[in-house]
């Protein structure tokens, strides 16, 4: 049960119970749905841009604690960031949850998102943690309207 505490950290449980920016964005410039066909998790990410900057970001959908908390904390982190910074954070986050980078503690670029480091011990849950991020990447690069984890 010890590993479970690493996965379900208090911050993650808090965001899964009370997700932040959990709403639609009427004036969104970009809207992309992320879908995990294996489990049926769905998340739609809304982004409104000002120039190259994320002016506002929100999400809707249904998923497990990990995917909901990840989407919630992603929206908190990205408000005000440039598209380039956001994509760089995605790279860092992906490396963290797949165990390629270790959590660095205070002062790291990821900051609070490092609570997701426990996901790397649960490979099957990596897709949960990255679902909203994949949707975000598609939204920023203008690639597709729907992204799938498969």
């Amino acid at each position, binding site marked *: 049960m010890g*590993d479970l505490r690493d996965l*379900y950290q208090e911050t993650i449980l808090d965001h899964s119970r009370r997700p932040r920016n959990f709403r639609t964005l009427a004036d969104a410039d970009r809207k992309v749905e992320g879908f995990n066909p294996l*489990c*049926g*998790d769905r998340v739609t990410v809304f982004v409104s841009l000002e120039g190259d900057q994320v002016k506002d970001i929100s999400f809707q959908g249904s998923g*497990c604690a990990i995917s909901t908390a990840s989407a919630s904390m992603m929206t908190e982190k990205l408000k005000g960031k440039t598209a380039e910074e956001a994509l760089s954070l995605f790279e860092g986050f992906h490396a963290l949850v797949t165990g390629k980078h270790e959590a660095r503690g205070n002062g790291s670029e990821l900051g609070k998102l490092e609570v997701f480091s426990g996901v790397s011990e*649960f490979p099957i849950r990596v897709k949960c943690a990255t679902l909203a991020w994949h949707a975000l990447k598609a939204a920023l690069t203008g690639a597709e309207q729907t992204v799938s984890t498969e």
Partner: protein
Amino acid sequence: MSGTSEALKTGPRAELVRFDVEAIRRDFPILHQEVHGRPLVYLDNAATTQKPKAVLEVLQRYYTQDNANIHRGVHELSQRATAAYEGAREKVQRFLNAASSREIIFVRGTTEAINLVAHSFGGANVREGDEILVSTMEHHSNIVPWQILCDAKKARLRVIPVSDRGELEMESFDRLLSPKTRLVSVAHLSNALGTLNPVKQIIRKAHARGIPVLLDGAQAAARVKLDVRDLDCDFYALSGHKLYGPTGIGVLYGKADHLEAMPPFMGGGDMISSVTFERTTYNKLPYKFEAGTPHIAGVIALGAAVDYVDSIGLEAIASHEEELLHRATEGVLSIPGLRVIGTAKEKAGILSFVMEGIHPHDLGTILDQQGIAIRAGHHCTQPLMERFGIPATARASFGMYNTPQEVDALTEGLGKVREVFG
């Protein structure tokens, strides 16, 4: 070769021996291991069952002693392999109580069996404006092949609705049967709800209108004593790996009259009697539907699985699983905020549930850390999940080797979910 279980070696006559689950467990080597430091509790039998030693040994023996291609070799090994392969067909025939082994077609699994019927029977018999009737509780493999057929033929897929308890709405079924209906295809036992459908009634009503019926028996085959002649179904599809046999092998039973009239599904070797560029004549049943070198080892091992299941007895297995299901249902309902999805009067072996505020995936991970394997997800029944307004369920499904103590471990494990989630 004997498929007889250790469970029955202790008594002089099978019917005098009580159901000895500990002896059965000794026949399944995989069960005796720890997962995350806890004894494995395998409750994902609706996804796939574990394999008894009798099946594993047959696979090993086939490849170490008898491996050869079937039906054409003049040499000893080929004759042995052919005899074992066709022997397994007869075992499956007896298991299903089919009238003839010609009615037993080996396929990869339930999915291929249904696709075969959709392609071959559907291709020959379905026209524009016709209808195929399925139900809301079908697995995607009993939906998508019919959608493909209906798209190609401009036919229409109609759907029998499901009640809040997870039972087929039989009055709607009566109304949906029409002169346009070409086939009814429904699950014998629902993989997501555990509902045992009134298939005899369905078949009787469909036949009264001259409509054939396919039963998806993926879940029922290991849980219900089957008699296709008593059911009077036209087609029955099942998967070996959910019946304590290997993956990659399954069975389509079809009444000979239908199979004779149907065109082949795939073309190739073994399914022909002669080939010229002008004209090819097809082989007789069942070979007409078995193109190419089949999964010989899988078929022989499926025969061993069927022997093993028979040696325990499906009635005994069904009654054991009924006790487990009852105990599990009572147990999980003692957990605050837990709701069972699928409360039909007739159920078997499968328990689906959701817990308020906690996604089934999180339940699955927390149970896994305690060594308990369940399934979490939509169970390839997305329309059914939509019907119940939920994205997914957690599902515990039982096999002959599960014990009351394992059921209690599930209940206790679910009790710990609140410790993690607060």
